[in-house]
């Protein structure tokens, strides 16, 4: 049989629709890879065999009947474990939800099912999406397929690693402060943080509502755009979701003549690893070769984006995580005590250290006497960041920046020092604050480790950034990257 891991998701879907291969065959192929590989990577928390087989056979039945099985017919999708798939446990990589089974599908899952996708498994992540390395997971860290001693990035580390080893052709992640882009960059795959509001959050177990989005992850830009077109769009269940035009054809190529690109200098500052900076600057020459101009631009508010981001995120998180009291679902501490006491003990036992830290920080930032100084202040800085993006994106068509200021670091290197971990998000959080879309694509290697390039667009400007990404991919051939080992 052909090596399916060398096919794009689009190609797999076409062959399934044409009857060349069955969805079940595809599924078994990738399950075999998971069984062989994941023991060393730990990308999956739950492998959803029963559900996947059911979905695959439904697709095959449709093909037999001559019905349209959908744009993602038979394509396996790995889903981050904070996105609800009905009757499959959703743990958020936390002990407190270790056995939680949601009785409903997230809207993105409904849309995936409608287009014939097959949900292959739930992937590992930082606990409640709080982290940038997938090390805070209660189920052990995921390892970077390019170097098993290193982190895959986070918080969607499991999804990115699964793609990098071709254990699945497509994946869903969520991005609150870089949680799709960081692991995409560290694992050499493609990930999009969509415009805020373009993908429904219904069924995304909340960490920080005003910042996060579910986003597509894949091994090529084209596949990523295809997945985006399936999941994006207004959802009546999400008051913050907007109607979006998401079905665009990016195969047509892009004429870069006259296109104006810019690099915000604060995002390639002195904190940037030398190898990363070098790889980045070499990579962006590809755009100039195509006829685009690249200038440097300054966005001073970006220097304050990190503390503003964290204050907003932890504040919302402290409220979003209050519901885990063990009464209606989740881990429940058994012992003597009244409601308040047992609630405090349940959370003490069920939450990991990073989650606890953020809940405490957030409660503090919102508490009487501190609200104005911390939370409200952060929201005002957010306005400044948003304005900066609006200003530069009026003049330029898109912005370029490295995704991460360093290559993937070693497991255990930063986890003991929360602040040093927060710092790795410095190039990704500004886009979450502003709500603009950002695509991370592999742009080269440094010291044998992947480097990611961010293409940042205007609100609802996914089409252009996808086209730019596709152009770069064609120019450089950096697509479907996979370490030899796998």
């Amino acid at each position, binding site marked *: 049989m052909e090596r399916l891991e060398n096919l794009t998701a689009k190609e797999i879907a076409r062959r399934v629709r044409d009857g060349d291969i069955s969805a079940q065959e595809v599924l078994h192929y990738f399950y075999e890879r998971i069984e062989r590989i994941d023991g060393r990577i730990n990308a999956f928390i739950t492998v959803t065999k029963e559900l996947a087989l059911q979905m695959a056979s439904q697709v095959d039945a449709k093909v037999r009947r001559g019905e349209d099985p959908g744009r993602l017919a038979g394509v396996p999708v790995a889903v981050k474990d904070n996105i609800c798939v009905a009757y499959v446990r959703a743990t958020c990589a936390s002990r407190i939800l270790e*056995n939680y*089974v949601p*009785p*409903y599908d997230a809207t993105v899952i409904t849309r995936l099912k409608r287009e014939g996708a097959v949900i292959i498994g739930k992937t590992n992540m930082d606990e409640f999406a709080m982290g940038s390395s997938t090390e805070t997971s209660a189920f052990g860290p995921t390892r970077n397929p390019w170097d098993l001693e290193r982190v895959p990035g986070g918080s969607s580390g499991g999804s990115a690693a699964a793609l990098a080893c071709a254990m699945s052709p497509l994946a869903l992640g969520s991005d609150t402060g870089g949680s799709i882009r960081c692991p995409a960059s560290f694992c050499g795959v493609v990930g999009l943080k969509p415009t*805020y*509001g373009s993908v429904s959050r219904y069924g995304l177990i909340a960490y920080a509502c*005003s910042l996060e989005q579910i986003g597509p992850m894949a091994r090529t830009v084209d596949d990523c755009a295809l997945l985006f077109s399936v999941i994006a769009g207004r959802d*009546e269940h999400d008051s*913050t979701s*907007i109607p979006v035009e998401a079905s665009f054809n990016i195969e047509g190529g892009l004429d870069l003549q006259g296109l104006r690109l810019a690099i915000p200098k604060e995002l390639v500052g002195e904190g940037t690893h030398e190898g990363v900076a070098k790889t980045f600057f070499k990579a962006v020459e590809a755009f100039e070769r195509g006829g685009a101009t690249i200038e440097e631009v300054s966005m001073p*508010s970006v220097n*304050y984006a990190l*503390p*503003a981001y*964290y204050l907003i995120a932890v504040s919302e998180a402290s409220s979003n995580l*209050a519901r885990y009291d*063990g*009464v*209606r*679902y989740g881990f*429940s501490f058994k012992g003597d*005590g*009244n*409601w308040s*006491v*047992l*609630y*405090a*003990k349940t*959370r*003490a036992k069920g*939450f990991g*250290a990073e989650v*606890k*830290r953020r*809940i*405490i*920080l*957030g*409660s*503090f930032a919102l*508490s009487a006497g501190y609200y104005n100084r*911390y939370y409200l*202040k*952060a*929201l*005002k*800085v*957010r*306005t*400044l960041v*948003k304005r900066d993006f609006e200003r530069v994106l009026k003049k330029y068509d898109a912005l370029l920046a490295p995704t991460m200021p360093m290559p993937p670091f070693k497991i255990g290197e930063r986890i003991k*020092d*929360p*602040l040093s971990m*927060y710092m790795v998000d410095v190039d990704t959080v500004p886009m979450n*604050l*502003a*709500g603009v879309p950002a695509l991370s694509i592999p742009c080269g290697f440094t010291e044998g480790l992947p480097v990611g390039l961010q293409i940042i667009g205007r*609100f609802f400007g996914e089409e252009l950034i996808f086209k730019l990404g596709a152009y770069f991919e064609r120019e450089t051939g950096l697509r479907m990257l996979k370490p030899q080992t796998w």
Partner: protein
Amino acid sequence: MSQEVRRETIKHVAWLARLELTEEEEELFTEQLGRVLDYFRSLDEVNTEGIEPTFHVLDVKNVFRDDVPREGLKVQDALLNVPELEGSFIKAPRLK
């Protein structure tokens, strides 16, 4: 902020957040969160005079739902994950 004041603050906020911390956690978090808060205070440098806070990045208003009833969860789904039940009542710890 002296170390003592910080520890009291962490204790108080942990209670506000209903999180029972061990002695070690109190000490560790006091140190770690102290540094994080010091870092967050860099925001004081930013002049936000006359700047409105951004609660929502998108300028969306008036999103509504019609007042039309729809079926919700079947009771077995609603109670799917409940640790303790009495009939179809959910059992919670005593209040006092």
